[in-house]
């Protein structure tokens, strides 16, 4: 064991550190009392802590034995003898229980049944999914409303405009949220069967990304794409929100639109596909 060196310096630094620490801690109490900013509180408390730490380190490094000390490593790997002894004790106990096959089997069955009773209450945590993930409140004739619940008139958006809309009566509903866009009618290249889904250049797509469910909210008019800010899934709005870049495996489901006799936008039916990210039963009817 070597003698501690530089005791004078260590003592000096230790003294300074502890004095500074005391001042810092006191400073924190003052800063708290006068409602100083978090910056002052943090700096003062930090000085209090740092002084304590530095003092202890100086003490340990300057005034305490530095070794190197040597400790024998305990040999924890047991000898065969000890293991035999343990095995013997265990076996003796097991023999005293005896061989009761039926009893043992019943014990296993009872324990298993009991385990089920522990797991059963997990079912209380939530409802069954059933068809909730595929059903929405959109349907033929359902009015399109904005987030305040106001119906959307056919002259609400200019070309290039975008609006988040919901089915009437379900404002702010998570799975019905829809992004409404207006583009030049002649630019649209609708997928087969959707030729009349976009009156006056209005297009409506599910706002839930088919990748991981984020709201697809960024409409870039120069490239006519909808962009999801989470993982940059990109959908070309002119041809059925086809996925053109990023991780989304499917286009955004499209909502057929119509304009009713009062000049308001209504849905012409439900989404072209169930909205939302992928799931196991996505392709099932």
């Amino acid at each position, binding site marked *: 064991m070597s003698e501690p060196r530089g005791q004078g310096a260590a003592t000096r630094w230790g003294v300074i550190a502890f004095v500074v620490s005391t001042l810092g801690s006191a400073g924190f109490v003052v800063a708290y009392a006068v409602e100083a900013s978090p*910056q002052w509180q943090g700096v003062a408390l930090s000085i209090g802590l740092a002084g304590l730490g530095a003092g202890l380190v100086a003490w340990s490094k300057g005034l305490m034995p530095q070794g190197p000390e040597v400790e*024998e490593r305990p040999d924890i790997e047991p000898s065969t003898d000890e293991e035999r002894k343990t095995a013997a004790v265990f076996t003796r106990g097991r023999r005293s229980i005896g061989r009761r096959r039926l009893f043992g089997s019943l014990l296993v069955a009872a324990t298993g049944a009991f385990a089920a009773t522990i797991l059963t209450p997990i079912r209380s945590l*939530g409802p069954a999914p059933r068809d909730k993930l595929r059903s929405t409140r959109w349907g033929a004739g359902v009015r399109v409303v904005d987030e305040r619940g106001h119906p959307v008139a056919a002259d609400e958006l200019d070309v290039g405009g975008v609006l988040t809309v919901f089915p009437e009566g379900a404002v702010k509903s998570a799975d019905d949220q829809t992004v409404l866009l207006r583009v030049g009618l002649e630019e649209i290249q609708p997928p087969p069967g959707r030729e009349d889904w976009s009156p006056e250049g209005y297009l409506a797509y599910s706002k839930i990304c088919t990748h991981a469910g984020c709201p697809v909210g960024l409409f*870039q008019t120069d490239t006519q794409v909808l962009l999801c800010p*989470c993982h940059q899934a990109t959908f070309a709005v002119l041809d059925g929100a086809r996925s053109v870049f990023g991780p989304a495996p499917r286009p955004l489901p499209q909502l057929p639109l119509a304009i009713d006799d009062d000049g308001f936008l209504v849905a012409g039916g439900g989404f072209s596909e169930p909205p939302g990210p992928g799931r196991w039963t996505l392709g099932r009817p």
Partner: protein
Amino acid sequence: MSVRDHTDTPIGRLARWFDVRLGAAEFTTSKLNYVFPKHFTFLFGEIALYAFVVLVATGVFLALFYSPSEAEVVYGGDYQPLVGLPMSEAYESVVELSFSVRAGLLMRQTHHWAALVFMGAIFAHMARVFFTGAFRRPRELNWVTGVVLMMVGMLEGFAGYSLLDDLLSGTGVRIAYSVVEGIPVVGAWAAFLAFGGEYPGEGFLSRLFTVHVFLMPAILAGLITVHLALVARQHHTQFPGPGKSEHNVVGHRMWPTYATLSGGLFFLIAAVLTLMGGTLQINPVWLYGPYDLFTVTSGAQADYYVLWLQGLLRLMPGWEVRAFGYTITNQFFPGVLVPGIVFGVFLAWPWLEARVTGDRRSHHLLDRPRDRPVRTAIGMAGLTGFVVTLVAGSDDVIAATFDWSIVALRYTERVLLFALPAAVALLTYRVCADLSARGEPAAGPEEAASGPAVATAGPGEGRAATGGGGVLDRLAAAPVSRATGAWRRLRRALVTTGMVAAVVGALADRLRNGRAGR
């Protein structure tokens, strides 16, 4: 001095009180005499431990003010820009805590910084244990405990910042729901049970709160206890060196030197975290605004210990597998399968390596990374892949900052995710083999003789003695003369990869008009 002198002091009497009841004297003696090896890399684990203490201390304070409720309220507090806005009670309580509770913001920011440091220290500690082979027999169980600690720590951190119900974290929870929903067969049920229904579910915040402040801290505390108890039982590993062998530990004794030093370290870490908490803004949720199901923000960044998952989600091409009417979802691969494989490899690593090397002996002396080129190369490849996923996780911000095309950047990252780890692995392997062949033996012949597995005896015979002639050793025994040539080839490969990436990036940048830009 007689024994009586020791026991007749106040401390002595107190100790006696306990000893009579617990018989703790012998145990205490051995712990006071416990020797800690000296090396700065042994501090990483301690930093994690002390950051955890700070997390618990600040977390208790925060929990007293946080309100885990989605109920909508209209803000009317001290922070003017949000006045009049509808928000959840949870978000309101966080804003109140930040602006209207004295020392509240200090506690909140210190808590957040401590979480980042906690995970960083765990990663650093794990890297040290990995690269030095400290996970080998007899420490496999402690490696497994540590990996589980890391996994729980990631979840705990994610749960913690998701409680705030701001626009960024709310979006993260939405993604988490989708990943759970995308698990084959059980996904929908799992999501409905975890969240209480279809997104956003029922009362999810109060569940998350219970998990974050009770369940997972209890698990973490339990695992930390096991982790430390196992270390104490088996004693620390140590690097080879003069006087050190497989049968001893050389360093500071617990009492008084190490206890004082480590106590000082605790206060220093707490000091750094408090200073950061007071002066460095983190997660200013009042700027992000309250979470809203259909509002969206760009530039969303997860904390880095989750960011790699976000990166993987982004890197995955837009594929999903459909067969017989069922779907293996896109998000399942990067969100569940890849992390599952990564953690599985982590957990199994001690056994995987022992299988390959055939070395199943106990080791208490650490490897120098250079002497285990294959392991070191694999570790470096893993770290490199991790970094690529981090870059991918923030590539939207990178693209916006440097005015690059996100499309080009993303395609480049997809290539780099595989190319860069492979290149780094080759490079590491060569550097290790070079260093190991040229370097002086770290341990003297005396130590080499005293333990069966001193890793650093000499270029040739040291390796032969190390791994029992496994694949590692045959690979590591590649002739040194080839190293220089391989070096040159590698440099060339790296430069070429970089140039190709740059050209691809520039070309795609030109072509980006008409496609999604930034």
